[in-house]
C-alpha cells in the first residue's frame, strides 16, 4: 500500500515536471516563432521606381523620414551631427528621425521583421555583405532610379566604392561609411629587429621573412612578428589582391553566384602560410575576436597586423601613448606583382519604396544625397576615420588639414585610387555572404588549430552549398 501511494505521489510530481520542462523549452521556441508572419509578399507593385521630383513641393507640412542606422560611439555622434545639420537646412519641410537599430547583424534582423509587419524605415543603413539580400528582398528603390531621374552627375563618387554596390553599372544603394583594409606595422620594432622601417613587407614571403627577425622565438623584439584576427574579411582581401574572384558568376555580378571559391589554390596558400607561421611561433593566433588582435598590436606584442582603416585612430593613439612609431602600408598580395587590389567594406544606405508614400521617398532621397555630398563626407571622414565616398571631400580644406595631421591615411587614399576596378575588386555579391564569411572563418580557424588547410577550406566551402542553393531557389 505504501509503495503505491508513493509512486502515485511521484506521478503527481511528474505531472508538474512535464509542463515545467515544456515551459522552459518554449522560451526559445517563442523567440524562433517571433519571426513568422504572413506579410511581406515583396512584390514589385510599381514601388521600385523613383517618384516625381516635385512631389515634396506638393506635400503639406513636415515630411518625417525614419532612418535606422547601426553606428554607435563616436560614429553615432558624428552621424547625429549630420542629421541635425540636415534637419536645420530643411526646417518645416523634412525632419529626419535617426534611430540606432543595433549592430549590423541586429539591424538587418530587425529590418526583416519590419518587412513582415510592413513598417520598414524610409532609409536604412545595411552592411556591405547584406547587399545581395537587400536586392532580393525587393523592398527598395535603386539609387540609379533617382540619379537617372535627376540626371545627376555622380562623377564625384569614388568609382571603386560605388563599384561594390553596383550591378551592370547601376547603383543600388548609396555607399556611406566605407573602410579599407591596410597593413599596419610597428616601425620601432622593425628598427630594433634591424629591418628597414620604411620598407614594410608587401607579400606573404616578405611578411614571413620579416617575422623571422621580429619574433621572440627567433630572438626578435616582438612576441610575434605577425598576428591578425581570424576574420573572413581578411581572406576575402587576399583573394581580391590576387585578382581572383571569391564566388562564381563573376563574383555574383553576372548572375546569382552558386558557389564560393575560398577553397581555391590561392586561398589555401594563404591559409597554409598562416598555419605554418603559427606553428613556427612567428604568428599569434588571437582567435576570432578582432579586439584581441588589436589589443595585442597596440601593446607591442605583434609587429605586423592586418586591419581596417577604421583602426587608424585607435592605433595612432596607442602608438603615441606607448612611445612607438606606427606605420601603414598597402594590403599585402599573396605573391608580389599580381594585379588586384583590396575590396572596400562598410555599409550603404537604402531607400525603401514598398509601402512608403512618394513624399517620403523623395525626402529620403534628399537626405541620402545630403549625406553623400562632399561637405558631409569630409565632416564624416574627419569625425570617424571612415573613407570619404566623394572625391571632392578629399579636397575640402578641413579634410586636407586632417590628413596633414594623420599622414598615414594617405596610404589608404592612394591604395584606393591605384586599385583597378574589376570583378575581383568589386567583391562578391552573395545572398548568404554573412554565412559565407563565417564558414571561411570556420575553415581558417580549424587550419590554424592543426587541420589540413585544403581539407579545412574545402569542408567550409562545401558546408555552404545547401545554403546557397536554398537561398537561390527561394528568391527565384
Amino acid at each position, binding site marked *: 500500500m505504501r509503495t503505491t501511494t508513493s509512486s502515485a505521489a*511521484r506521478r503527481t510530481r511528474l505531472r508538474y515536471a512535464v509542463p515545467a520542462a515544456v515551459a522552459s523549452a518554449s522560451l526559445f521556441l517563442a523567440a*524562433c516563432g517571433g519571426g*513568422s508572419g504572413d506579410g511581406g509578399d*515583396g512584390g514589385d507593385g510599381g514601388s521600385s521606381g523613383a517618384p516625381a521630383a516635385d512631389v515634396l513641393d506638393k506635400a503639406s507640412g513636415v515630411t518625417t523620414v525614419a532612418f535606422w542606422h547601426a553606428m554607435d560611439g563616436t560614429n553615432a555622434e558624428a552621424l547625429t551631427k549630420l542629421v541635425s545639420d540636415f534637419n536645420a537646412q530643411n526646417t518645416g519641410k523634412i525632419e529626419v528621425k535617426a534611430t540606432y537599430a543595433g549592430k549590423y*547583424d541586429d539591424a538587418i534582423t530587425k529590418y526583416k521583421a519590419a518587412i513582415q509587419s510592413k513598417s520598414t524605415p524610409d532609409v536604412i543603413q545595411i552592411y556591405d555583405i547584406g547587399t545581395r539580400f537587400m536586392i532580393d528582398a525587393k523592398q527598395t528603390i535603386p539609387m540609379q532610379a533617382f540619379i537617372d531621374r535627376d540626371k545627376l552627375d555622380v562623377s564625384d563618387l569614388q568609382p571603386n566604392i560605388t563599384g561594390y554596390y553596383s550591378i551592370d553599372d547601376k547603383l543600388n544603394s548609396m555607399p556611406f561609411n566605407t573602410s579599407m583594409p591596410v597593413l599596419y606595422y610597428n616601425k620601432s620594432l622593425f628598427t630594433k629587429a634591424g629591418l628597414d622601417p620604411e620598407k614594410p613587407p608587401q607579400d606573404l614571403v616578405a611578411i614571413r621573412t620579416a617575422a623571422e627577425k621580429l619574433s621572440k622565438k627567433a630572438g626578435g623584439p616582438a612576441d610575434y612578428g605577425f598576428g591578425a584576427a581570424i576574420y573572413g574579411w581578411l581572406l576575402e582581401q587576399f583573394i581580391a589582391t590576387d585578382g581572383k574572384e571569391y564566388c562564381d558568376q563573376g563574383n555574383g555580378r553576372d548572375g546569382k553566384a552558386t558557389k564560393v571559391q575560398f577553397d581555391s589554390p590561392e586561398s589555401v596558400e594563404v591559409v597554409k602560410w598562416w598555419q605554418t607561421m603559427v606553428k613556427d611561433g612567428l604568428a599569434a593566433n588571437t582567435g*576570432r575576436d578582432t579586439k584581441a588582435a588589436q589589443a595585442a598590436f597596440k601593446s607591442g606584442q605583434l609587429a605586423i597586423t592586418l586591419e581596417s582603416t577604421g583602426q587608424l585612430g585607435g592605433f595612432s593613439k596607442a602608438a603615441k601613448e606607448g612611445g612607438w612609431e606606427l606605420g601603414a602600408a598597402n594590403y599585402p598580395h599573396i605573391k608580389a606583382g599580381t594585379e588586384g587590389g583590396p575590396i572596400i567594406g562598410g555599409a550603404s544606405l537604402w531607400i525603401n519604396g514598398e509601402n512608403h508614400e512618394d513624399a517620403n521617398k523623395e525626402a529620403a532621397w534628399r537626405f541620402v544625397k545630403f549625406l553623400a555630398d562632399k561637405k558631409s563626407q569630409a565632416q564624416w571622414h574627419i569625425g570617424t576615420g571612415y573613407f570619404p565616398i566623394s572625391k571632392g571631400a578629399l579636397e575640402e580644406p578641413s579634410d586636407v588639414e586632417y590628413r596633414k595631421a594623420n599622414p598615414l591615411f594617405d596610404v589608404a587614399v592612394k591604395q584606393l585610387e591605384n586599385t583597378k576596378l574589376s570583378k575581383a575588386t568589386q567583391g562578391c555579391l552573395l545572398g548568404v555572404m554573412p554565412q559565407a564569411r563565417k564558414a571561411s572563418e570556420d575553415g581558417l580557424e580549424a587550419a590554424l588549430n592543426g587541420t589540413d588547410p585544403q581539407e579545412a577550406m574545402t569542408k567550409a566551402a562545401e558546408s555552404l552549398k545547401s545554403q546557397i542553393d536554398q537561398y537561390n531557389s527561394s528568391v527565384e
Partner: protein
Amino acid sequence: MTTTTGEPVLAEHDPDRPNQPPQAQSNNAAGSGAKRERWVALGYLLPALVIFGLFIFWPLVKSILLSVQGTDILGNPSGFVGFVNYTRLFGDPDFLQVLWVTFAFTVLTVIPSIAIALLIALLLQSRIRGVRFFRTAFALPFAFSVATASVIFGVLFNPASGVLNGILNTFGVDKVQWLTNPDLALWSVSGATVWMQIGYNLLVLSAGLGALPEDVLEAARLDGASGLRLQRSIVMPLLTPQLFFLVVVGTIHSLQSFGQIKILTVGGPEDRTTTLVYSIYEQAFANNNSNYGYASAQAMVLLIIVLIITALQFGVLERKVFYR
C-alpha cells in the same frame, strides 16, 4: 526513520500533495453548486491560462508548424516540406557535436556548481565570527546578470592582459588561451557558468541546512554520530529535496544557457562551445540567417531532450529523495 524498506514513511504526509478536495458526487442538490465551483475555479485559472497559452503553448504549436516548413530569405514559411528539416538535422555530422557539447556543458556546470555550493554551505554553518558577512559575500554572484558576469569573465580570461594569466605568469606558466584553445574553451565557459550559479545554489542549500530539524540532529548526536558520519547519514539525506530541486532546475538552466556563450566565445573556437540553444540562435538570427524552419526543428529536439531528462530525473532520481 524506516531503513528496512528503503521507502521512508514520508508519503503519508506529503507537502507536495495537498488534500484533494472531496469529489462532488453528492446525491443532494449540490450538482449545480459543483458546476458553479468549476466556473469559479476556471475564473481563477484564467489569467494564468491566458498567459501560458499566449507565451508558451502558442509559440510551441507555432514552432512545431515551422519545423515542418521551409523558410524564405525573409523568414516567412515557404510551404510544407515534411520532415526535411529533421532529416537534414540528423544527417549533419556537426549536429552530433552540438549535442555532445550541450551534454558536456550541462555536466560540467550542474555537478560542480552544486558540489561547490554544498561545500561552502556546510562551511558557512560553522558558528564563527563574521559568518554573516561571508554568507552574503558568497551568495553575491546571484545578484549578477549573466551578461555582466560574462563581460567580467571575458576580461579575466583575456590572454594578454587578463588577471588569470597574470597570476599564472608569476608562477612562470606561459600564456593560456582560455577562450581560443579548442580543447579549453568549453572548460572556461563552464567555469564562468559555475561561478554564476553558485550564488543561487548556495542560497537554496543554506536555507535547507538552516531548516534541518534540530531534534533529529540532536538524536543523532546522542547516538554518537558526529563529523563526517553525521553529514553523510543524517544531513545529506535530509537535504535531498533541495539537492534534487537544484539538479532539475540547474539542468534545465544549463541546457538553456546562452548569454555567456554569446559574449565569451560566440560558439567557437571550431564550434566547440556551440550548444543546442546557441545553434538555434545561429540558425534563426545570426549572420543574417532566418532559417526558422531548421531552427525550430532543433528547438523540438531541445524540447524532447529536456522532457526526457526531466522525466528521468523525476522517475529515477526522486526515489532517493527524502521528503519529510
